């Protein structure tokens, strides 16, 4: 299989990023996602240099020069998947993250374990960012149980539907 990180993958990631930008409008936790992206940008090169694990494509013509562990693309993609948990945007970000991870292994840029490490790191960085924001007082800790929260949301939706029906 020929290694292909050229136009095809760049275009795919660009399209995903455009859709992702729109999907971000429908998700909460944008501040934590932003902090997590910064943390990932700082930590990924450090981890790659420290672990120094080869990519599967090593020796191919257009194989990236840096080490493969963990996958940076998967880390970034899964930050958004974790951040959109509980919002409709999850149904965009989650399949998109899987697609990114799959493409990295399919094109030989990363092994499955490197993608798994990237996914785990991305989700962990999101939750760490959220806890740091709560600790710094930037975000309030939500204490409402998810069942109660869902019940209140459903009640509000029903009331809104009733109002729309009443006023046409």
């Amino acid at each position, binding site marked *: 299989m020929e290694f292909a990180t050229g136009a095809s993958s760049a275009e795919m990631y660009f399209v995903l990023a455009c859709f992702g930008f729109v999907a971000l409008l429908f998700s909460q936790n944008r501040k934590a996602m932003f902090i997590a992206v910064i943390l990932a940008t700082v930590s990924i090169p450090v*981890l790659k240099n420290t*672990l120094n694990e080869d990519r599967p494509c090593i020796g191919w013509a257009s194989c990236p020069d840096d080490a493969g*562990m*963990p996958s940076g693309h998967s880390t970034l993609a899964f930050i958004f*998947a*974790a951040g959109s*948990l*509980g919002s409709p945007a*999850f*149904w965009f970000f*989650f399949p998109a993250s*899987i697609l990114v991870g799959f493409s990295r292994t399919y094109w030989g840029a990363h*092994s*499955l*374990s490197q*993608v*798994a*490490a990237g*996914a*785990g*790191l991305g*989700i*962990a960085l999101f*939750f*760490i960012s959220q*806890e*740091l924001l*709560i*600790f710094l007082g930037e975000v309030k800790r*939500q*204490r*409402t*149980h*998810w*069942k109660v*929260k*869902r019940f209140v949301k*459903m009640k509000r939706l029903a009331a809104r539907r009733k109002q729309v029906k009443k006023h046409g």
Partner: protein
Amino acid sequence: MGETLRKLFHITFGAIIAISIYFLGRDGGLAALLAMLLAGMVLIQWKLSGFEEKVIDFFLSRMERRVTIPGIGALMFLLGAILALSFSKTEVFAASVLLVFALGDGASTLVGLKGNHRIFYNKKKTWEGTIAFFFAASAASVFFLGPAALLLSLILAFVESLPIPIDDNFTIPIAGAILSYIL
């Protein structure tokens, strides 16, 4: 009862994952953990959208703390396992870190809840819990690591007792992974 059941599940789940990693190896273990992580994320999203399933609801109602995201404890544990396995020097060390974490954290909560002697730098934890962490973790990991298990358990027991604002599902595996390059 809820906390005891939760910790017993934590110990069993952690021990199963650690032993599986020992036999599956690093790549197989990470692939299995990734599959569980993805399935867990979909389940959480479904639960938040109103999906009901008897078996899952049974576990959630008995073992979950008062949380804003259903099943977040299990998801955090899986993330910790992925971090330990990805960034530890060897899979044997990663399996040991997970055993230390599963048994040590479980024992520290079960014993610590009944303890009276508060730690001076963290009033939320007790000396009894930290000592229980050390003994349970040492007993679990000594078969994999030999005498190094005592030092690993001692350092991780200290890390667990620190008042860090980050979930201990992350701090312990990360500390364990760093120690794998030092010990």
